[in-house]
């Protein structure tokens, strides 16, 4: 069944910079914003943009992600033709390989893409928080007659050296690409979102695979090779909220952006809905003595204490006299009576015992250089009265596993 454009979503990474949060799950499966997981953003963007065929490339710890994606129904990707397909590495007659790099992951699935005989392929990352209409980007790609269109956004000049930077001419045709340049010539940063004309990309993937020393990566190999060969590469300027949540700090920041008017991240905006798999649980109960302010609260919670400047996910409990401030609390976490949680990321199904303390505000730190958010991996159990200092990371092997 021929499709005009399909999407390939790179979701295989461990996300090692998320440390204890990704011990048991791939980065795109990490909860975000109370009701969602990171992968809901690209999947919803696809659905909202009219892309009905999505291949999700998985490799690291895929169980949680596979389970979550299921048949794709929450994103209306349970289609008779197309829909969402999870694509792990596989064995073939000539051998078996892990996905060696982002380009190799697509290369190994040329067969899948050819099934749909698409004119264009969108290559997306599974770890970005943003709302984007890919159909608009595709329209620009077609109008420019490009081989590849790369989504870019302007970043502050002093941060440009952290990104892949594009130099463009007056028509926004890319003239030069530099990965994390020391002295950037432009402040247009690649967002890791590409649309390729499939016939072109197919040829470059096969050529790249034949190179011995290639790292088989889009940014390092495919894009430079296309530029060098004189292909037309075009920058697509994106204006709006976009954040790579590949680090603990950026994940915390992006969650806090939900609570900040004017940050550009407004999940209550229904014009571009983010879809997700909904947990089965009753509405949230807020108690007589609860004190909630500037917080996002998902359903299924029971809040009896203080919750300020916090994202509280589905099915959490905040006990009497407990205080949760400037924190991201993931689904099913239990914060017992009198516990104090501040500047922390609390993983799924953690249990923080009575009067325990997790994290602390930056102004309390003796040495600001040593301060950081405290992070508890999924199912971590903090004992009654225990203190978890700022910048500490604990996982479920700490103490005994929290009861489910």
């Amino acid at each position, binding site marked *: 069944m021929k499709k005009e454009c399909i999407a390939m979503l790179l979701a295989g990474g461990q996300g090692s910079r998320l440390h204890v949060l990704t011990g048991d799950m791939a980065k795109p499966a990490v909860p975000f914003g109370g*009701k969602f997981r990171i992968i809901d953003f690209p999947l919803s963007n696809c659905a909202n943009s009219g892309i009905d065929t999505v291949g999700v490339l998985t490799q690291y710890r895929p169980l949680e992600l596979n389970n979550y994606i299921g048949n794709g129904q929450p994103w209306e990707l349970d289609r008779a033709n197309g829909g969402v397909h999870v694509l792990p590495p596989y064995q073939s007659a000539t051998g078996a390989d892990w996905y060696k790099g982002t380009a190799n992951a697509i290369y190994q699935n040329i067969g899948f893409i050819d099934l749909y005989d698409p004119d264009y392929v969108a290559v997306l990352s599974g770890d970005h928080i943003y709302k984007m209409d890919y159909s608009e980007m595709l329209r620009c790609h077609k109008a420019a007659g490009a081989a590849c269109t790369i989504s870019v956004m302007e970043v502050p000049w002093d941060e440009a050296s952290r990104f892949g930077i594009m130099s463009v001419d007056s028509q926004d045709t890319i003239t030069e690409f530099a990965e994390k340049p020391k002295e950037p010539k432009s402040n247009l940063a690649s967002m890791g979102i590409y649309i390729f004309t499939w016939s072109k990309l197919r040829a470059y993937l096969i050529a790249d695979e034949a190179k011995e020393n290639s790292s088989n990566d889009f940014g390092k190999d495919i894009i430079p090779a296309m530029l060098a060969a004189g292909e037309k590469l075009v920058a697509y300027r994106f204006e709006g909220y976009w954040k790579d949540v590949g680090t603990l700090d950026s994940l915390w920041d992006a969650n806090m952006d939900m609570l900040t008017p004017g940050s550009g991240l407004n999940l*209550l905006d229904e014009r571009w809905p983010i879809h997700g798999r909904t947990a*089965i649980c*009753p509405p949230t109960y807020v108690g007589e003595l609860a004190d909630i302010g500037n917080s996002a609260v998902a*359903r299924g919670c029971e809040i009896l204490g203080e919750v300020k400047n916090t994202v509280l996910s589905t099915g959490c409990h905040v006990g009497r006299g407990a205080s949760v401030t400037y924190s991201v609390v993931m689904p099913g976490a239990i914060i017992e009576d009198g516990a104090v949680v501040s500047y922390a990321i609390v993983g799924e199904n953690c249990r923080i015992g009575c009067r325990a303390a997790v994290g602390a505000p930056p102004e309390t730190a003796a040495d600001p250089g040593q301060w950081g958010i405290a992070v508890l991996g999924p199912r971590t159990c903090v004992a009654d009265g225990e203190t978890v200092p700022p910048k500490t990371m604990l996982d479920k092997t700490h103490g005994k596993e929290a009861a489910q």
Partner: protein
Amino acid sequence: MKGMHGIIFSYGEKPALGQLTACRVHGSLPFGGDYRVVDFVLSNMVNAGITDVGVIMHGKCQSMLDHLGTGKSWDLSRKSGGLKLLPAFAYGESRGVVGPFRGKMEALGSVVEYLRHIRQDHVVLSDSDLVTNIPLRDVLDAHMASGADMTCVCTSRPGSAGDTYFKLDAAGRIVDTAYDIRIPVGYQSLNIFLLSRELLLSLVEECMAHDRYSFRHNVLQEKDGTLHLNGYVWDGFAARINSVQDYYRYSMALLRPEIRAGLFCPQRPVYAKENDAASTYIDPDGECVNSLVSDGCDIQGSIRNCILFRGVKIEKGAHVEDSILFKDTVVRTGAALRCVIADKNVEFSHDVHMAGHANYPLVVEKNTKL
């Protein structure tokens, strides 16, 4: 095959629900912040392993049809069996009858072909106005153990005079059925009945042949000598919603932890239609106390002792107390509400003040702008 088949009755008028059922049958009345009343009946069935459910419909069924859809939300969208919607479109014509069903036996008679094709040995019949979380599997076990022909679920909690009441003997057998009695005595029927498919079919065919239509008169009362009718007493939270007062009182009961613990017990989850609303946002100036809050609300003002459905917006300086606000209600700055039930998509403009009484809550009709 072993197991139960579910039949839900979704028709009829309840004048005491007033405006709340102006545009819907009582089964599709929103309840508890996230649900429709029928979700509880359906979840009870699904949690007992029931895979096939027929819903007999008549009257204002648009919102019910909308809500049930393919049955996916209750895992009842199946290759074989699953949820079947049984509207009575052709029935009236074929029998020359106008108007709604006169009774449950007539309703069952209208779908007798469907009943003949039921795969399961047992059938559980239920009204769609009951909010409870009952283990129907236990009811089936008790039914089998008692050797009864039919098991009727009832409660020792008193109801209103118009309800049906059973008198049980020491062994739990129903020895008398009465309704419209001035001072209710005995066990109030919760209108959940369990019987074998064969018995159901023979009762339906017999009633059809004699133009008998009332379940409680022609079956419960007339057959209690020839059939062994047993009572199953269920004293968990059970709300039969017959009036605005019932609706308000039972809704507000959800603010009590022990009621929520029973109704939303984790072993038997209540399934509702999924929604994509993001988390509720509570502003630094917002106040939210002793309330049940669904997703997608934006609370900048103050709410106390309230039940908020999805997407409710409370602007700064608005005060809402002891009220139930359906989906997408907007309360503007300076407005104050007390003991109000606002149907879907109502807007209370700036400085509007409205108050009902706990015994007489004020209902504001769907889509009203005040």
